[in-house]
């Protein structure tokens, strides 16, 4: 019974954090929990996306399905995700203020040049938006309208005189249903690498500075090893998280050393510099948001989803089973 909720009490070290990405180490959990988190991020988080397009007029070159698919992948921002419900969980059957947001694209190219329709042209129907618990009207709009640093996403080019009029329905959904609801572009959870130096082997290298220098310079494609002033090969802990576990350092053999170096000492037949292991309790998590939800929030939401939808029910089930079993024993 090592998945009891109370026992999950990790220690978190944040390596870097910004709105759109977060990298941290998590200690004191096992791989199933971390992987569960990762899967929750990809599958279970609920976000908004355009889910239905009704084409009133499409005079563009491309077909309706083509445009609808592009529109579906447009990131939609909202300042309060809880304000919109998943439609299947909503009391209404065919969409109401609580579970859908309506929007439209209505563009006519009046210019003489081809015109690019972008996600900036998506107009959310303001009057149809739900109210937040604090009394404000919900903000729900394409990400590009919130984050001015973003480039508009091209959807289609319209010829002079052509127009496009689409009614859009924004709904809440999960990444496991369609990738458009997945809030991350990257989500990695991996064990922290452990590199154990073979002291005997390393000593041979460190005894002769050109060898040590060569080892540090060439063996790791990421260049993680460093040479201290007193000629010792080290691996600074902050470098370790860049390790890709490529195994080049473990595979290192004396044949890779430059030959014919003046004063080179004799080396043993087998020369191991280090061994690679992975930690069972410490993990690196790297999340990159597509921008609709801040990366730290993604982690928090994933954690609560994991607990709420998986760990708590599982724990309850286990307790029930234990309870039943006790009763059985009593007979």
């Amino acid at each position: 019974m090592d998945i009891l909720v109370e026992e999950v009490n990790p220690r978190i070290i944040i390596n870097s954090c910004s709105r759109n990405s977060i990298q941290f180490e998590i200690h004191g959990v096992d791989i199933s929990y971390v992987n569960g988190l990762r899967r929750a991020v990809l599958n279970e988080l609920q976000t908004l996306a355009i889910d239905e397009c009704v084409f009133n007029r499409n005079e563009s070159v491309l077909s309706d399905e083509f445009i609808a698919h592009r529109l579906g992948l447009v990131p939609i921002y909202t300042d309060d995700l809880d304000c919109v419900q998943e439609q299947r969980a909503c009391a209404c059957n065919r969409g109401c203020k609580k579970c859908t947001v309506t929007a439209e694209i209505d563009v006519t190219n009046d210019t003489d040049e081809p015109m690019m329709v972008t996600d900036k042209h998506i107009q959310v129907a303001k009057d149809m938006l739900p109210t937040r618990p604090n009394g404000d009207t919900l903000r729900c709009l394409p990400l590009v309208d919130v984050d001015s640093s973003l480039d508009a996403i091209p959807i289609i080019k319209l010829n002079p005189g052509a127009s496009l009029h689409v009614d859009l329905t924004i709904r809440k959904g999960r990444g496991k249903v369609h990738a458009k609801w997945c809030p991350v572009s990257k989500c990695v959870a991996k064990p922290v690498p452990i590199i154990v130096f073979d002291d005997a082997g390393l000593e041979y290298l460190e005894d002769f500075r050109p060898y040590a220098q060569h080892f540090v310079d060439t063996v790791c494609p990421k260049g993680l090893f460093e040479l201290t002033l007193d000629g010792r090969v080290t691996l600074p802990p902050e470098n370790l998280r860049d390790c890709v576990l490529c195994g080049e350092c473990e595979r290192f053999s004396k044949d890779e050393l430059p030959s014919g170096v003046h004063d080179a000492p004799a080396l043993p037949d087998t020369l191991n510099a280090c061994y690679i292991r992975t930690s069972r309790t410490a993990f690196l998590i790297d999340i990159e948001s597509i921008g609709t939800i801040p990366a730290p929030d993604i982690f928090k939401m994933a954690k609560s989803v994991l607990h709420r939808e998986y760990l708590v029910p599982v724990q309850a089930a286990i307790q029930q089973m234990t309870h039943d079993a006790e009763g059985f024993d009593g007979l």
Partner: protein
Amino acid sequence: MEEPKGPLSLEDDKWRLLPSFFRSFGLVKQHVDSYDHFVAHKLNKIVQANKRVTCDADSGFFLEFRHVWVGKPTVEEDLVQRPVTPFECRLRDLTYSAPIFAQIVYTQNKIAQTKHSVCIGRLPVMLRSRACCLHGKAPDDMARLRECPLDPGGYFVVRGAEKVILMQEQMSMNRIIVDKDQKGCHMATVVSSTDERMSSRSSLVLRDNKFYLRHNTFIEDIPLFVVLKGMGITSDQEIVSLVGSDPIYADALAASLEEITRLGIHSTMQALIFLHSKFRPRMGQKRRSNLDQARECLISVIFNHIETRTIVDGTFTVDFRPKVVYICTMLRRLVRASLGKLARDDKDYYGNKRLELAGDLLGMLFEDLFHRLCVDLSKAANAALSKANRAQQFDPSQSLRPDIVTQGFIHAISSGNWVIKRLKTDRAGITDTVLRLSYISALGMMTRITSSFAKGMKVAGPRSLQASQWGMLCPADTPEGESCGLVKNLALLCAVSTYSDKTPVIKLCYSLGTEDISTLSGDDIAMNYTVFVNGDIVGVHCHPQQLLRAVRLARRKGHLDRHTSAFVNEQHRCVYIATDQGRTCRPLIICENGASRLTLKMLDDVVAGYKSWDDLMANGVVEYLDVNEENGALVAMRSHQVGPKTTHLEIDPLTALGCCAGLIPYPHHNQSPRNTYQCAMGKQAIGAIAYNQYERFDTQLNLLVYPQKPLMHTKTISLMAYNEVPAGQNSSVAVMSFSGYDIEDAIVMNKASVDRGYGRCIVYKKSSAPMRTQLNGSQDRLSGPPKPEPGQTSLPPNQRQYQTVEADGLPKVGATVQTDDVLINRQVPSASASAYSPSPICWKASVPGTVDKVLLTSNDKGELLVKVNTRMLRIPELGDKFSSRHGQKGVVGLIVKQSDMPFSQNGVCPDLIMNPHGFPSRMTVGKMLECVGGKAGAFAGRQGDATVFGGDTHTAIGETLVKAGFNYTGKDLLYSGITGEPTRAYIFFGPIYYQRLKHMVQDKLHSRARGPRATLTRQPTEGRSNKGGLRMGEMERDCLLAYGTACLMQERLMLSSDVFIAQVCEGCGMLASRNWCQTCKTSKGVMPIRLPYAAKLMLQELQSMNVLARIQLRNVT
């Protein structure tokens, strides 16, 4: 790809001549050149050859065609000629053709009348030829004509269908081939063919040390000396001396001489009588005197390409000497070959092959059609002029029926049947519809060569790759199966020669010291080098190399046609010069004195556009060599290999491949058949087909939603503009096993990639219907849907198929059509006068479609033509077929959530997972290199180069990868998406270009419980399109039989198929009607039995053939 400013080295940059080459000639120059030659020269020549039409009724009447030319492509509507574009023809099912005009002179009342520009027929116009309205148009103008600027042209639009005339490979005419016949006798064969005469095959055979002539006008082999004597050479000594003075010839001929002595033939007269007795009897031959017939045969049937008749002062004189010399030359070759002094000729050697192109084939056809036109005209003149008193004057220009030519062309091109009466040929499959599956498939059809060789023959020779095909034909691009090696494709730079006049060459030969044979003795001929021009002996020369040098110099200077070829065959002691059409040639850079004539400066100018390919030709920097002349050339592959004896330098080894094989990255690292497989699959790949793809109405059009340029490109790809109309997507591929749903080449696909548009394609299907005018003048019509019952708002369920149809009988654009819904609600007039019966065109696919476009237009008969294009979105699903560019095809075995997919350190998830078992047996190392090269290219931010015999080296790729922080060999550590643990092995991971192939589950999915049955046998129908049953064949039957499940077998084979209760009479054992046997006239003992209907049918069919099968009945308890 980033282009460096100017050429840096000759070796690395001489390939840059190629863009200039394609700018000048386009991708299908061979077709266009041939067609242009036909229009410019051949057409007129054919008309001039039979220009005069006379008639028997009035000897004073004649009609003469003077000058003939082809106008601009037009269409005639309401008696008005209007220019037409190919695109309009495609849409409206018209034929893209231009009128052939002639100036005619004829007599009317014995006064010569002249008419300018009379149309004698319409010629289908090849796209991009000089007659086409697209010729020389800039891309913008093309766009205005709704034509794709990348389209290669070279095909025809006939009745709205795009048809290409395939190149036909044939043995070359008028060339001596020394070989063995089936019995192992040596023989020298010539197939003679001239413009005027039918082709005929004549062979000299050496049998039992005696020489014979074999020709199918004779019932048996004729002793050769009889023929020679028939030609007037009565002296044996003269014959032997013409063959050669070496004693070997006299020895070889001795037996033959003895034979004719035994036959008692000494004089010409005796020989002719003998020949006449050996004629094969022919039906309907004009009876003529024996001697004349034999003489005529010698003149115009045997070796008829050697002209024996000359016109002196208006009378024919016959001079057999050229023919005799030719036969003796053949004899000399034969004798030497039989003695082993001369190698036999290789029939598969590509120098002995000629390609027949569109121009030649159309020429043959036109000649026949024009002849028919003239005969028809002559008949009409006869009919009109033989009347005693004519109501009005006969105007032959009114009786000229251009339809004969027009319809003849259209029929031949659209059916592919070339029926030519004069040559007595009937060839099928000459043309083919241009497949628009992808840009490559259309381009591939233009470079295709078919061979007339019978497919059923089990011989390897004609199918195998010949060394002489190097640089001319693509070594990889050929189909698998029965036509393997018979259907070939041109290499990238291969040009096919067009005919050029041989008189300048002959004149040049004479002025360069060639001596005419007519003045020479046999010894003189045998001692010197014989000079052949297009297979005819023109004379002898004693310094062949000098002659050769001069001819080549004249060609390089532009005094002779660029495709003229000249070479010496030292074994034959002959100089062969050729100007004929259909030879495959390829351009090479000329080298002199150990240096290439292409300098870096010139290359610079070509790249900058200051010099064109034609300038290089004119300056003698590049020239065309045909297969034969290549034999005398020493060609360096790379510029550093140029030595003092080198004559030519390759432009680039990549030109050895064709356009389809040019797509493959690193093909030189692959096992050869894999490249062949890719050549076939590249044609099935879905992608973009042309810039005008959304405008087109094709029967079926598959388009990828997001086609991508390949990350690993080749030079051929950029030369063919494949980057502009690609067919595939760069996919990150992990080579690992996953889930077990990836066995047998299946691939596992990432659901998130599919969601984001990977492999997504749109299928367009056309339904069309013309509103035909019936014979009685009534017309088909469009009609609205049936009206709902009064009081109802919608149609009753049995008329739901009309729901998409609007009042005009057509569906709304954007409407969804379900299976069996009506697309075009056509009604045809019934037999009774005013009634119409429905004849709708319905949506046949099993999934709904969306109406995309509706076209209302008129066809060439002026009828209303309706075309409806319907589209379907196809997202990859289980069972859809994908392939990389290395002949590695596979179906989707599983689509996996992204969270379950393995991921790399950086969070990269593969788009698809390929099982590593695909590699060891296939040996597609090119695919591995594409993977690492693509990965390196992705991180370096450029397209990698994977051109054949070149491209990025694996060391450079590895170093780029290491610099970007990856493993040198392209392996990454991946983590399981299911458990989160690192995989136990490093996984080969990188981007590979994948093609989605046209085979999709949705088009093939089929099952049936109950359904239609065939009328005759009452068995279930066959095939998906007929909602057919799934056959339990013999092998399946064997399984059940072996397993002993008799009842199951009976159910499958009879009860679920064609069970029938038949009545059988116990008495006579014949089939009876119910309770009554007509034979026994009784109702007693008529028993019902159960049997397959097919069995009952067989019994009755046997009866109809007077075979009576009786059934004996017995009680089984």
